[in-house]
């Protein structure tokens, strides 16, 4: 049902589609769509990390390493350059390292995401950033067609709305999808053309009532979902991840539904500032904690699973506070650390099993 990423992108490239490799995480996707560019996001490309190790220290997170490994391979499916949104110190430096020191046959673009709290000044600046990004893209891809941008915003808005519906359905156990299937669906948005993604989301059936009564409901927090084997293992244990606070997931969708776009730049700015609190945007901790607690109560989960990427500073700072608060509130939680290697370790299996046992005791006790 979901097209294979590699095949899909290869096919698109063969059809003459402009494809830009985009590193994590936040960027005005609609602006790229309006230039007929397909963003193919690069989060955790599979394979061994070989060449990147010659450029990066051992203490750099695996997303950055995998990203560089991918770039060094000069994949044929990326033909319109690379975009590095400003997410963290490591990605910030990787952008200039690739552009100014290592070099690549593709142009390198950057997009700053303001870290200041929302106010008039930040809003105005975000509008300027969009304008500057448009100008940069125009020098390479020709003038922007405003009507196309408007259409892209409308399409984006439809995706957001459908996503909200599916998110709510997942919480209400109205989706007949396993954990891996659910996250494959979420992550298909990382490479599908928006119209294809919307079609896919629309094909997902929302049942009238709960399809099963899960007594093991978890919320997942972190940057990326765990590897598929871990997700399947959770299925084996009858655990359903019913909500997520992932940077690659719900943190990239507005908290509430926006009005239909009128002015595209105003719309994109509103959308950006309506994204849920996130470590990489340096959101206020009170807001982040409040948001997480709200998700926990609304989705009626029994516990929280943190999937922490090794050496990820933004998440690790927040993690201590989130954990502390959840413990105070007696919310069961488990923190897994990942280096984004395939499979599931014996240790993780044991820890997950022990966690679920503890969860059951709490639920029944």
């Amino acid at each position, binding site marked *: 049902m979901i097209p294979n990423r590699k095949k899909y992108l290869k096919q698109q490239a063969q059809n003459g589609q402009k494809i830009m490799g985009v590193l994590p995480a936040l960027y005005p996707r609609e602006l790229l769509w309006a230039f007929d560019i397909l963003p193919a996001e690069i989060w955790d490309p599979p394979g061994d990390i070989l060449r990147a190790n*010659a*450029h*990066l*220290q051992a*203490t*750099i997170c695996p997303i*950055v390493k995998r990203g560089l490994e991918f770039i060094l391979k000069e994949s044929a499916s990326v033909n319109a350059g690379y975009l590095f949104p*400003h997410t*963290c*110190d*490591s990605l*910030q*430096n*990787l*952008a*200039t*390292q690739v*552009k*100014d*020191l*290592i070099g690549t046959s593709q142009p390198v673009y*950057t997009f*700053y995401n*303001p*870290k*200041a*709290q929302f*106010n008039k*000044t*930040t809003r*105005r*600046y975000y509008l*300027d*950033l969009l*304008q*500057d990004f448009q100008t940069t893209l125009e020098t390479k891809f020709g003038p922007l067609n405003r009507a196309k941008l408007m259409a892209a915003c409308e399409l984006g808005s439809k995706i957001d709305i459908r996503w909200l519906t599916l998110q709510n359905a997942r919480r209400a156990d109205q989706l007949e999808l396993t954990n891996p299937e659910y996250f494959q669906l979420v992550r298909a948005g990382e490479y599908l053309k928006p119209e294809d993604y919307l079609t896919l989301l629309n094909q997902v059936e929302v049942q009238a009532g709960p399809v099963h009564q899960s007594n093991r409901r978890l919320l997942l927090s972190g940057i990326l979902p765990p590897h598929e084997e871990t997700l399947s293992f959770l299925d084996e244990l009858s655990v359903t991840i019913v909500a997520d606070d992932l940077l690659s997931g719900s943190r990239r969708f507005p908290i509430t539904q926006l009005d239909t776009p009128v002015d595209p730049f105003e719309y994109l700015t509103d959308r950006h500032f309506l994204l849920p609190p996130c*470590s990489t945007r*340096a959101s*206020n*901790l*009170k807001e982040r904690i409040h948001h997480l607690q709200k998700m926990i109560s609304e989705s009626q989960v029994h516990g929280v699973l943190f999937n922490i990427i*090794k*050496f990820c*500073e*933004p998440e*690790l*700072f*927040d*993690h*201590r*506070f989130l*954990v*502390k608060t959840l413990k105070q509130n007696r919310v069961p939680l488990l923190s897994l650390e990942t280096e984004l290697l395939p499979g599931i370790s014996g240790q993780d299996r044991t820890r997950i099993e022990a966690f679920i046992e503890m969860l059951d005791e709490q639920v029944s006790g």
Partner: protein
Amino acid sequence: MSLVGKLKYQFMKDIGAPALMSLKDLKQHRKRPVSPAFGPPLKTNKRLKEILSRHYFLARYVPGAKQVAWVTSGAPVELLRAFDFYTIYPENHSALVGAKKQGADYCTIAENDGFSQDLCSYARIDLGHMLSGKTPAGKLPKPDLLFCSNNICQTVLYWYKAIAHELDIPLIHFDVPFVAVEQSEADVRYLAQQLLDMIPILEQFTGKVFDLKQFEIILKRSQESSQTWGKILELMQAKPAPMTIFDAFGHLAPVVSLRGLPVAQDYYDLLLKEVDERVNKGIGAITNERYRLIWDNIAVWYQVRYLATFFAERNMNFVTATYTNAWAETTGYLDIKDPWSSMAKTYGQIILNNNLKHRLGLMRKMIKNFGVDGMVMHSTRSCKPYSVGQFDLRKALSAELKLPAVIIDADIADERVWSQQQIQTRLEAFCETLEDTTLG
């Protein structure tokens, strides 16, 4: 602010601190033996110790007299000075803890409380201090306000956010966009507007009215201190160099943490005079300077003495560093007549907020101007913005300038990361290559 608090602070400032400093003078510390490879020490060292001790000593009497702000090293502190805050620099304090080889103790406190060992050690030390109250400086006042800028890293923002949350105090953040290519007009406008937006917030917080004239005086002082610091560093182009970069790591403290205050300017005037005199008399920091080196990245605070001695005994002197240069590099942009936009340019383009093309160009220039023969890069576990890219910088500089170079893996303030055997072997191999290359 209470009257008693103010009087107590004033008394300590005028009488208590000077008395204590002269007492410290009498109490001669047992001197550790210094290698004969070093030239005569700088006389100004004594003054440096005095002003830093005084700053930390007075800090104990500040609560009740002045409002206290904890500030990041790259933040535009001049604005806070205009509102008469007493400023504490946690990065500086963490470096001090590191230099005393106590970093691991403080880090452990933070780690035991849930902070990951993979976080920057300056942050962990500070969080350890915050959680325990421990400090080698006697006692540090709790902040009333936090002031941070992400022009050095995003880490400080996460770190200050953590303190703000824990202590439930306000955080003022100066958001500085990274210069991926060059600063745009929009960037400058954004930065300048943020500074202007801070004024009413600070007025409300302190109950004081912003005085532009006073602010300009502070800015001018700040500019002069940075410029004088720049001149001091330039004098290290002399052969033999009058200081080592390890001296400069220490003498950097006032321009970081007392910038904008008269004491900093007076201090650098004194240091400039002494360094200039040494140049004229041909007095070197090491007795037989045969090789001149560049240092990249922040100091390894707990090994400064070891590293200084290791190289001095091999007739090698560090004459320049990207780190010490950071507080002088962009001062040229400052224009008192146009404070807001010029501050945007000054604070927005510092080395850690600028792209690696810029850093490469800067290092190339430094290597040339300072007659550098070799390079030591400290790849520090703590600092991503300083360390990511170093491997390729080294490659580019080595290839282009045929410059022998070595990278050592360590940390700025967490001594657990130091591996003596491995580093010594690397450094020895580097020294051999350097000697061979120069002989050849």
